[in-house]
Each structure stands twice: as C-alpha cells, then as structure tokens.
C-alpha cells in the first residue's frame, strides 16, 4: 500500500471517513464509521444484510446524505461545503460535478434499457463531459473490448446475460475515467457460472491500480484482491485489516459467527 502512495506522489487518502453517521428517520443505519482508503487500494466490505455496507457506499458518492461526521473523497468534503464553522448544503450541480470522478456499479446493473451497450457507455462522456461523439465511441469500443464484449456493442441490455450486462455497466462507469470505483454487490444478482466473468474484469482493474471500494459476499475475491477487509455489522466496523488475517483468524465473536456461515 505504501508503495502506491509514493507512486502517486501524495499521501492524501482517496476516501476518508470520520465518524460517519446516517439515519433514515429514527432508524440508525450507520453509527460512526471511520476508515480510510489509500490511492490504488482495494477495500472490500463484508457483513450481514442490513449492516449498512451499501448505505456507506452510497454515502461516498452522495446518493445518500451523511447526517453526522465527515466524509472526504480525494480531500474534498462530500455533500457539503464548509465555510467558517458552518456546513452548507451543496447545490445539485456541484454534487453532480463531485460524482463525475466516482464510478459506481450496482447490484442490478441499472443499464439504460432503451440504449444499446455502446450507447450506454458513450452517454455520460457525451452528456456530462461534452466529449465529441466520435472520440467517445472509439473509447467505448476499447472499453467494451477490455471487458470482453467487443461483439455486443449493438445489443440492447435485454438481449444480454446478467454477467454481460454487469460488464457493460463496468465499462460505462470506466468511460468517465473515474479516480475511484464503487461496487455495490456486483455479483449478487448473477447466476453462479456468470460470477467469474465479472470478478475477472474487477481483478484486472485492481491490477491496473484502480482505487476500489467493493461491497461483496465473494470471500475468495476479497482474500485474493483486497488490500483491506472491513467487516461491518449493525452500522459499525467490527473488525478490519489484512483480508487473509481477518478471514483466517477473526478476533470478534460476530465476525467468527458470520464467517462460519459464509465460508
């Protein structure tokens, strides 16, 4: 990890959470999350359903608003501007600008069904970054080839398998040249035999030095790829550290109980 930090010439973490709280009404979903993801690092979040993993992920790109604590992406406060000792709600236009550099991949792909695979990938570069269509198309073709779908450029999402759709979704996120990729259970909606093809693409991304935060139930992937594993339960980080150590030798009772069920 230290290696990648010096390679990028800065030691400012890509994601920094300080005591992040999130409630939905009276329901407390996140109760003080503190963690940090370095540049080029892969952080995997595991834990039972309802433990707040996805909510935390959605806070990082401001799909949810943090209620207390501070969350920084690349040194910039997420969702608010701080002037003096007061926080001001961010204008939607500013929030959209912050999200541009953060790619997100959803459990249910959320591809645009009325656009072909290629049109899905070029949509945001053209609309948001105002890139010329020819340039965006050329780049999109490269990205589709990178995820192994060069021949599916003209297919509509409904004509693709789940694994293919998720790979298009990854290409769509990469088309914005993000500095950070968020994966929200990217393989949970897939048939077992299709999981591998998506994980292969993610493994390749990690190898190329992409900073990634991955909510997953794929313990094998976490052990192999993650630099840091975080086990969450009931809105708090129960245990974190080197994935091999946490998985092989969990310290907490709750971690042990959870891992005994999924491993």
């Amino acid at each position, binding site marked *: 990890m230290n290696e990648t930090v010096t390679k990028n010439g800065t030691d400012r973490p890509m994601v920094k959470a300080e005591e992040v709280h999130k409630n939905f009404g009276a329901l407390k979903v996140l109760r003080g999350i503190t963690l940090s993801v370095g540049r080029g690092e892969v952080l995997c979040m595991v834990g039972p359903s309802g433990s707040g993993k996805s909510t935390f992920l959605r806070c990082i790109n401001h799909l949810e608003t943090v209620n207390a604590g501070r969350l920084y992406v690349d040194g910039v406060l997420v969702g608010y501007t701080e002037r003096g000792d007061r926080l001001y709600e961010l204008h*939607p236009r500013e929030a959209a600008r912050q*999200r*541009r550099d953060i790619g997100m991949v*959803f459990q249910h792909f959320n591809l*645009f069904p*009325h656009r072909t695979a290629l049109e899905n990938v070029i949509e945001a570069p053209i*609309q*948001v970054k105002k890139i010329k269509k020819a340039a965006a198309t050329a780049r999109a073709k490269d990205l589709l080839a990178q995820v192994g779908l060069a021949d599916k450029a003209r297919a509509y999402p409904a*004509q693709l398998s789940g694994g293919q759709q998720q790979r298009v979704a990854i290409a769509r996120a990469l088309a914005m040249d993000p500095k950070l990729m968020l994966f929200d259970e990217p393989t949970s909606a897939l048939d077992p035999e299709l999981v591998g093809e998506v994980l292969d693409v993610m493994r390749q991304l990690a190898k190329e030095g992409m900073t990634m935060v991955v909510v997953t139930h794929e313990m094998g992937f976490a052990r192999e790829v993650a630099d840091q594993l975080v086990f969450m339960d009931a809105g708090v980080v129960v245990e974190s550290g080197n994935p091999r150590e946490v998985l092989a030798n969990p310290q907490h009772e709750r971690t042990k109980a959870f891992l005994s069920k999924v491993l």
Partner: protein
Amino acid sequence: MTTGTVATEPETIQAVPLRHYGRWTAAAIVIILVGLFVYGAATNDAYDWSTYWKYLFDQRISQAAVVTLELTVLSMILGIILGVTLAVMRLSPNAVLKSAAWVYLWIFRGTPVYVQLVFWGLFTSIYQHVDLGIPFAVQLAHFNIQGFDAPFTFAVIGLGLNEAAYMAEIVRAGITSVGEGQTEASVALGMTWVQTMRRTVLPQAMRVIIPPTGNEVISMLKTTSLVVAVPLTTDLYAKTRDISGVIFRPIPLLLVAATWYLFFTSILMIGQYYLEKYFARGSTRKLTRRQLAALADAQVESMESQEKR
C-alpha cells in the same frame, strides 16, 4: 457423445392440420350478418346516399373539418404542456406545488367538459377586464375583454385546460413507471436533474405515455364536437347540423360528419403505431429479423468449421 451433423438430422414434421369446424361456422355467420347489414344500408332510402355523396366533399364541410383539426391540435398542445407541468408539480417535494396540482386535477377532472366549455363562454360576464402587473401596486397592462369575442380561443382554452388534468395523470404514471435504479445510475454518472429527465427518464416513460396520449388525441378530436357549448359553430359537427337544418336531411349529414371523424382518427392511429414502435426499442429480448439472420449465419459457420475438423 454423438455429433449433430446435418445428415443424421430427422425429417421436419409435416402433420395434417386440425379441422376447426366450430370456428368456420361462426365466421360464416358473421360474414352473412355483415353482408345483410351492408345490403340493407345500401338499399334503405333513409340513408339518402345521393345527398351523402353530394355533401361529403362540400367545401363548407372540408373547411369545418380544418377548424376541428385546429381545435384538436391547439388544445392538445396546451393540454400536454400544462399536463407535464402539473405532473412535475405533483412529483415535487414542495407541499404547496403538490397540493396546487392536486386541486387543479380535482376541479378539472371532476366536472364535465361540457359544463367547463359553457363557463368559458361566459368568461366575459364573470371578468370585466384583465390587468397585468403587481397586484395592488403596479399596473403594466389593461385589457378590456368585454368586446373580446373569440369563441375559438375560449374553445381551445376550455378543451386544453380540461385535457391538462388527464395528461398530468398520464405523464405522472409514465414517470413513476421508470425504476429508481435508472435515476440513480444517471445521477451516479454525474448527470444533472434535467439531463436525467431528458435522456433517461422521459424516453422510457414515453413507452407508457404514448398509447394513452394517442387515445387522448383521438378522444379530443371527437370532444371538439361539444364546442357548441361555448358557443362555437364553425367546427365539423356544428356545420353539418347547420346544413341539415336547412335541407331537412339529418341522417346523410350525420354520416358525412362520421366519415370525416373516422378518416382523421384512422390517420392518427397509423401515427400512433409508428410512435409506439419507436419508443419500444430495447424493451424486448426478441431479436430483430436482421439479428436472427446474423445469429443463424454464425451457427452455420461454426457447424461447418466443426465438420471440417
């Protein structure tokens, strides 16, 4: 394991088709009944076909048909613009906007369009003049509408405002039919609210919006026959009634009006078909004929290359 080569493939089945005697009898009865009706209509003097043909392409009728078309198009434009606005207001988190839209719907959908048209006809007796400016302070413009005699304008306003209430519900249903994940995916890519609506939500909502809107257009074309309530008497139905009142032949002239309405609705139905087809792209797994042909070619190729091995 056996290799499936073309030589061992079994013959395509050529079965004797089942005879559907019941269906055939029913079809024959329907044909006979329709034939009898057409024969009766052609020979019945009450239909007065010579008058029908005389007035079908009468210039007064075709001019009135143009008025009906103008009424339809203008009031639909007004209805759609106002309807989209109302739909967005109803989906707004702001309570004032939301309830204002609800009250509008409540009134305009809850009263008959005929009654509303009579009201618009009486507008000038309710409001003597219209002022533009800041209330109780600055007056920018003053219109005396007492001499304002424009039944056509009031007919368009009356039909359009009524239509807006229905269009608002259609648009709202369309927008809410697009999954939350679509908005989230767009937002996560850095798209603004306007971009998300224009590029992601509305194109998908169109699939739900177009069919009922087509119905609304067709329905509007026919509702224009109520503008006599304003009263406006230059539209298709009013004009055919005028003529039949003079020549004392209501039935052939009703048929003339019906023919023109049917002609317009048929054209609208064709337009609707193509619009629906356009907005349905990507909604089905079914492959197009071109895609199927490409897949079949690929299959043949891969089988041939296997055989060579």
